[in-house]
């Protein structure tokens, strides 16, 4: 990320107009552009590169194999294949470029006109275009050639007409967009002419898409032109074309099968180069998405559940000295979570609280191995029911996810598959992952839906996610999580996307389920209000470290860290004279390896030189309580209600 002061210090740049920006050669374009130029030069220089007259027949020396005189041999009429290839490529490329240019020159103005005129004319015109597209291209070209006669210029024109439809759509879209925009209405108001509107706004806007379209059409045009010559509809004898050469070669394939190779190979090379150019052009406009490493973590095989024994009393989760490294392409890797330790027992709710970027989600997602791309556990251990869960095999990871740890994510509607019914999504995991029969799974699901308070469960099973409300969807997701009988439930901002009343109900539900089932719940949230409602224990995280931890009641009633205090002050309260919630001013620091001072000091009103002298360790002012602050609790308590 860019440093703020740095950004301010740099001189204001003039924004380049979109026209020059889109024409600037991007690095990925250099190689395909060079290859295309080679292709064009070969075509242009064909008369000089050729060793023979491509139409010169020599029937005594037909179908000769390569020799010093004829580098690639001769064809059925004794003509030099090498020279015919060069002239064939030249004519095929000319036909292809010509067709695309014709398409561009016809399509762009028509599209702009249709988009600017709008209304009935536009609708009628587009109907006509759509209908013409119902005629397969080669048949349309054949119909045009039936009118004009067989010649490559005619097939080029016909192909150009077909390509023009592509350009019409792009130009029309941009023109429509421009016509509707407010700045054009304003420009119109001050008397800007239509011509100016087109040259200054519509064409520059549409240019990247139009250029990409030219790139996409070129290889297609080359292959279609060659096909048309093969059919005898394009380039006519004695002129050379790769398609016509292939047609002649096929006639003699019984006696000289190798004749089909040179024209075909050259055609493929030319098409590959043009495809390469097309891909580079469209990539420079719209880069490809990057990879998704989570899927790779699901590659293990799943075995049926082993009975899990809880060793060490009832401890379900034990995180010790956890450190997580995150890759940062700009600044190199950094430790986004450092020295995090906590434990969670059966039936207990532990809340992990902090702002975004505090490392709370990273910490919780590390438990079932769901950290995002580039992040990995570098230090410490995570034990689920006494068994290590970091650095384990993919099989163990799947076992952990299917049988021991369930996760509820923030947006319940997005977490349900849009194309499967609720029933499929609840029943299938039980059959696939737990080996239940369909009837067993169904009965279990109905019971679960009743348990999480979903009315008319049978009816819900037939519904899709988009037919549910957010609160209902979250209950479905909770049922889905519970259906696998996990030991630990991780709820990552599970109620943040819900209405306040629904949020309250879901919290109540989770609390009840935790107690009834003896489930350990790890609740990740940014809201202290939620903590006081649901948690037994709380861990407050700031800049990748725990700044305060202890019993939720204690921490909420008497926070000992200024940051916890600030979080508590950010909770809206329904009381007379309550101030609007404020989050602490400033932002958390970015930490590469370890902090060199108190991370909160720059935002803290109690900070002094001793806070900046070195890293602060967790202090224990009272038993079962840890605070990463050197101020005495009574000093911190004075901050309550004060604007920091």
């Amino acid at each position: 990320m860019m440093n703020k002061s740095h950004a301010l210090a740099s001189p204001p740049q003039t924004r380049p107009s979109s026209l020059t920006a889109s024409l600037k050669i991007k690095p990925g374009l250099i190689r395909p552009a060079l290859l295309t130029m080679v292709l064009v030069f070969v075509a242009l220089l064909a008369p000089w590169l050729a060793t023979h007259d491509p139409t010169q027949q020599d029937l005594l020396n037909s179908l000769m194999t390569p020799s010093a005189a004829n580098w690639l041999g001769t064809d059925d009429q004794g003509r030099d294949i090498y020279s015919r290839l060069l002239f064939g490529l030249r004519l095929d490329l000319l036909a292809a470029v010509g067709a695309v240019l014709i398409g561009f020159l016809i399509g762009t103005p028509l599209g702009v006109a249709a988009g600017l005129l709008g209304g009935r004319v536009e609708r009628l015109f587009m109907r006509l275009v759509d209908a013409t597209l119902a005629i397969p291209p080669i048949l349309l070209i054949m119909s045009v050639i039936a009118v004009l006669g067989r010649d490559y210029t005619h097939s080029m024109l016909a192909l150009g007409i077909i390509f023009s439809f592509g350009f019409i759509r792009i130009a029309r879209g941009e023109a429509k967009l421009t016509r509707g925009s407010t700045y054009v209405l304003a420009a119109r108001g001050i008397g800007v002419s239509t011509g100016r509107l087109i040259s200054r706004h519509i064409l520059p806007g549409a240019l990247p898409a139009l250029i990409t379209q030219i790139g996409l059409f070129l290889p297609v045009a080359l292959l279609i032109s060659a096909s048309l010559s093969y059919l005898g509809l394009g380039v006519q004898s004695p002129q050379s074309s790769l398609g016509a050469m292939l047609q002649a070669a096929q006639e003699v394939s019984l006696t000289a099968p190798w004749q089909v190779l040179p024209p075909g190979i050259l055609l493929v090379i030319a098409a590959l180069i043009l495809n390469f150019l097309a891909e580079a052009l469209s990539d420079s406009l719209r880069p490809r998405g990057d990879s998704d490493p989570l899927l790779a973590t699901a590659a293990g095989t799943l075995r049926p559940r082993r009975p899990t024994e809880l060793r060490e009393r009832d401890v379900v989760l034990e995180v010790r000295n956890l450190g997580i490294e995150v890759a940062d392409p700009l600044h190199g890797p950094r430790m986004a979570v450092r020295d995090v330790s906590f434990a969670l027992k059966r039936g207990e709710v532990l809340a992990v609280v902090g702002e975004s970027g505090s490392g709370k989600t990273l910490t919780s997602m590390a438990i079932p191995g769901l950290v995002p791309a580039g992040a990995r556990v570098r230090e410490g251990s995570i034990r689920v029911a006494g068994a290590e869960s970091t650095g384990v095999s993919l099989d163990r990871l799947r076992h952990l996810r299917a049988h021991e740890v369930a996760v509820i994510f923030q947006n319940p509607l997005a977490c349900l598959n849009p194309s499967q019914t609720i029933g499929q999504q609840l029943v299938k995991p039980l059959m696939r992952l737990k080996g239940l029969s369909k009837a067993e799974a169904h009965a279990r699901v109905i019971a679960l839906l009743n348990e999480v308070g979903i009315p008319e469960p049978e009816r819900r099973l037939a519904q899709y996610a988009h037919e549910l409300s957010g609160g209902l969807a979250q209950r479905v997701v909770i049922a889905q999580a519970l259906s696998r009988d996990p030991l630990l439930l991780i709820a990552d901002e599970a109620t943040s996307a819900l209405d306040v009343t629904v949020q309250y109900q879901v919290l109540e539900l989770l609390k009840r389920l935790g107690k009834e089932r003896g489930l350990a719940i790890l609740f990740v949230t940014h809201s202290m209000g939620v903590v006081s409602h649901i948690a037994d224990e709380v861990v407050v995280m700031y800049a990748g470290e725990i700044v305060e931890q202890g019993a939720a009641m204690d921490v909420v009633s008497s926070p000992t860290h200024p940051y916890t205090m600030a979080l508590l002050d950010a909770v809206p309260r329904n009381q007379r004279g309550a101030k609007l919630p404020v989050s602490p001013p400033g932002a958390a620091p970015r930490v590469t390896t370890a902090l060199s001072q108190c991370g909160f000091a720059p935002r803290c009103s109690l900070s002094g030189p001793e806070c900046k002298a070195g890293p602060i360790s967790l202090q224990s002012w009272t038993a079962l309580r840890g605070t990463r602050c050197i101020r005495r609790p009574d000093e911190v308590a004075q901050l309550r209600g004060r604007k920091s």
Partner: protein
Amino acid sequence: MFTTITTRLFSGALVLAIVSIIAFTLAALSPRHPEIYKLGADAPIEAVQSVRTSLGLDLPVPQQYLNWALDAVRGDLGTSYVSDTPVSDEIKQRAPRTLILVFVSVLVAALLGVTIGVLAAVYQGTWIDRLLTTSASMVQATPGFWLGILLVTLFSVMLGWLPATGYVPPTVSFSGWIQSLILPAFALGLPSTAAIVRQLRGAMVGELKQDYVRSAIAQGYGRMQVALGQALRNAMGPAATVIGFQTIVKLSTVVVIEKVFAIDGLGSLALNAVFRGDTPVLLGTVMTFAIVVVIVNMLVDLSYSWISPKSRGAA
């Protein structure tokens, strides 16, 4: 659902009406000389005139169109100038082989394309992905007719495993029919694989980033279970579009492949009609192809509502 289909049928009929006007206009613009085939080149002018009058060629073009269109709606597409047989008979005889060839080739392309697309997306960023997408681009740059010629040279001329040319109807010999379809179907279908691979890979990569996929992974689903059981169906919308589009492309390139394999289908019928100036045959073939295209587009539209339950309510 019922109203959806009726609307689609209505707009399909409208498209066909417009196509018929475009195609007839082109036909009317092309030189039409049926008398050459009926009377020879040196026929007396009166005889030529009477032939042209009997075929309605001296009527105003809109009148000609109306006459033709009214007959066409009843299934009468006129008579070939060359063979003097009804165009619709010729089309009925040849259409099955062209349509079967296109169908089988799209099936080949779709099966290969979906399989490769899913694998490339699942193994995205690895050597498997690069190998699959690169080979797909290579195939895309290969023109089907050259591929056809190569396949014939290899499997028929050199190895003698499969017939080089011709079409064997299934009623004559079922195994002969399969054998006669294999090479043309691959030559026609393979180049389409690349487009399907690219589209499906892109759509799958997009789906695999979605929350529901992360949720499925968190539930302990395996990699292939996530890809096939969760993401594939949601990625099939764009794939259905491109498969439909490729079917239309195949309805075009089938003309070339029929020539490579000397199959007497609709394509070669149209091609011969161009060479001989047999306007009624060309016009009838164009209309037949347009009807197939309209039906394919309709099926693609309907497939959306199967793929996405959300669009069912919206349609």
